[in-house]
C-alpha cells in the first residue's frame, strides 16, 4: 500500500541524512521525498511517499519517531488529505504539434512558462497520478525533459500538523 508520511523535524544539518539513512539501512522504499523549512525557520517539513505492508509502515513511523531530531510524524493516508506535486516538463512543439501540446496542457490545467521556436516548457501541479497521466497523454518521443518535486501533502479540513 502507498502511504504519504508527513514529518516535522528540526531544521538542522544532517537531519535529512538521518531520515534517508534510516530508509536505506532498514530497506524501506522511498518513492519521493521533499523537504523545506516551514514558516518557523527552526523546523522543516518533509513529505515521504512510501509503499509497504501495514506492519512495515507501522515500523517506519515508529523508527522515524525514534530519530532524535524528528518532532512529529503523521501518516496522512490514514485520513482525508490533499496531495500535490509540481512537474516542469519540456516538450517538442513544432509545426502542428504546437497546437496539440497547448491543448493538452490546457486540459490538464498546465501553464506554459517558457517558449522557444521548437519547445514549450509546461508547469503542472496535481497528484502524482495526474502528472503520470499527462506524461502518458503526450507522445513519448516529444518529451525532452521532465523534473518533478515529489509529493507534498496536507490534511483535509481542520486537521493541522503543528508543533
Amino acid at each position: 500500500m502507498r502511504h504519504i508520511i508527513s514529518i516535522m523535524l528540526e531544521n538542522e544539518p544532517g537531519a535529512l541524512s538521518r531520515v534517508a539513512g534510516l530508509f536505506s539501512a532498514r530497506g524501506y522504499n522511498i518513492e519521493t521525498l521533499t523537504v523545506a523549512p516551514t514558516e518557523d525557520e527552526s523546523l522543516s517539513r518533509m513529505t515521504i511517499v512510501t509503499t509497504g505492508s501495514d506492519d512495515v509502515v507501522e515500523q517506519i513511523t515508529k523508527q522515524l519517531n525514534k530519530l532524535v531530531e524528528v518532532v512529529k510524524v503523521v501518516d496522512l493516508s490514514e485520513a482525508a488529505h490533499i496531495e500535490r506535486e509540481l512537474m516542469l516538463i519540456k516538450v517538442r512543439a513544432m509545426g502542428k504539434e504546437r497546437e496539440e501540446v497547448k491543448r493538452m496542457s490546457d486540459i490538464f490545467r498546465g501553464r506554459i512558462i517558457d517558449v522557444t521556436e521548437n519547445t514549450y516548457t509546461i508547469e503542472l501541479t496535481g497528484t502524482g497520478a495526474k502528472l503520470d497521466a499527462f506524461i502518458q497523454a503526450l507522445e513519448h518521443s516529444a518529451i525532452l525533459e521532465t523534473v518533478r518535486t515529489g509529493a507534498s501533502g496536507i490534511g483535509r479540513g481542520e486537521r493541522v500538523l503543528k508543533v
Partner: protein
Amino acid sequence: MELTGAEIVVKCLEAEGVEYVFGYPGGAVLFIYDELFKQDKVKHILVRHEQGATHAADGYSRSSDKVGVALVTSGPGVTNAVTGIATAYMDSIPMVIISGQVPTHAIGLDAFQECDTVGITRPCVKHNFLVKDVKDLALTIKKAFYLARTGRPGPVLVDIPKDVTSAKCPFEYPATVTMRSYNPVVKGHPGQIKKAVQLLTEAKRPMVYTGGGVILSDASKQLTKFVKMLGFPCTNTLMGLGGYPATDPQFLGMLGMHGTYEANMAMQNCDVLLAVGARFDDRVIGNPADFAQVQRKIIHIDIDPSSISKRVKVDVPIVGNVSDVLEELSRQLEAAAYKPNQKALSAWWSQIGLWKSKDCLKYDKKSKIIKPQFVLERLYEITKGDAFVTSDVGQHQMWAAQFYKFDKPRRWINSGGLGTMGFGLPAAMGVQFANPGATVACVTGEASIQMCIQELSTCKQYRLPIKIVNLNNKYMGMVRQWQQFFHGNRYSESYMDALPDFVKLAESYGHVGIKVEEPGDVEAALKEAFKRKNDLVFLDFVTDQTENVYPMVQGGKGLTEMILAEEL
C-alpha cells in the same frame, strides 16, 4: 570568565561526575589532552587501541549505573572505535564518545586524518553531533549525556573540530536540558496495565520472559518481587541474565538458540506470555512463523515502541520504563487481591518439571580431557557466584551463560547483539575500574582473546587484577560447531593454527600465566589464580576440541526443534 573549548570539555565531564575517560591521543584532540594533563578530577585511562577504549567505557557502563566515556582522535582513531560503538548500540548501552575532528575550515578538503565521523557513525549511535561553534559545546555535551542515559539508552558521539577546542567563550554548564523532539515515555498507560492484570489473572500456563531492559532499568528487585508474587516460571535472554536470580526455583534458565529445553518448551507452549524489556530477537524465538502458530496472549513492556510488534505481534503493548510499569502492575495485582489459578498452575509446573528432567545441560563429567562446562562450574563455585564475568563471543560465551548462575544484575557482561569477538578483555578493564576490589573474570577463547590482546599492556599499567579464563580448544569453536552440523564437517579456516604460548605471552606483559591440561588440576589452578588478589592471571585451559554447545535451535527452525546432546 572565558574558557577554551578544551577546558570546557573537561569541565563538562567533571560536572557530569565522570571519573574515568578511556582514550587514546592524536593531533585533533591535543588541546583536550593538554587540559586533562592540568587537572586530576577526570582520570584518563590510556588503552592500546581505540576499540579497547570503547569496550572499556562500555564495560564500565554495563557494570555500574554510570555512563562510560571514550575519547579518540579524528580519522583512524574514530574508525578504530566504530566496532565498540556499534557493540554498545546493539545492546542499548549508555556511552558518550568524544572524537576529535580536523579544524572547521579544513572539513571537506580531504584534510590529514579527516573522515566523515558523523556519517560513519550515524547508523550505530543513538545520536551524534558535530560542534562547529564553541558556544554550542557545553549544551551539546549536556544533551549527549542526557540522550545516552534516558529512554532506550545508547551511545552518543560528539565530534569536535580542533579549532573549536582552542576557541574561547564564557562557560556555564546547563543544569537541565529539554528537547522538544525527544520525550521518552516512562509510565505505562493505565488502561493497558489493567488489561495486562486481567490476562495474568486468568492465565493457566503463564510464562515471564525478560531481557536487557530489566538490567538497563535497574528493575531486578521489582521483577523478582513481582514474579514471586505470581508464582510463574521465568526465563531470561542472554542480555537479561541476572535480572532474575538464577538460583531461584522459578527460574528456568536462559531461552533461545542455546537456551534450556524447559525454557524453550515453556516459551512455546504458554498461554499468556509477559515479555519485559526484551525484543523477541531471532536468536530467542526461532522462526517467527513457527512461534506464531501457537495461540497465546502476549503482553509486552518496552520503553521503545519500535521494539513492540516488530517481529512478533503482541496483544497488550505497554510502552514505558520497566521499573515503573512493574511497580504499577504489582500495585494493581495487590489491589485486586490476586489469587492465582492454583490448580492450573500446579499442572503447568508439573509439565515444566517433566521438561526439566531432560537435564539438557548434562555433559561427560568423567572425561579425561578438560570439559569447558566443568571449568565454568568450578569457576562459579570458587568465586561463590559473586564475580563479575565478562565474555568474548563463541562457545565459551554460551557455556558461561549456561553454567555461571547469576543472581545479581550487571554481573554478566557480554556482547549479545553485535556478537563482538575482542570485547571481553577491554570490557573487563572497564568493569574493574567501575568496581575496584571486585572479582572480575574474563571468559574467553583462544581466537577471541587475540583480537584485543594488546590490552594486557593497559592492564599492567593500571594494575588490573583480572582473571582471564581462556577455554582453549584450538578452534573457532562456534564456527567449527556450525560446520560440523550444517556444512558436512568441512572445517574451513576455523582451526587456530600457530597459537602463541599464552603463558609466555602473559609473562612478557608482566602478568602471571598458568597452563592447565588435566581435569584434576582445574580447581587448584582456579584457586591459585583467585588467591592472587593483585595479579592479572591468564589461565590457559586446554579443553576438549570436539565439545559442542547444547541444546541448539538451528537458525530458521522452530524453538522446540532443539538438537540435544543425547541425540547425536
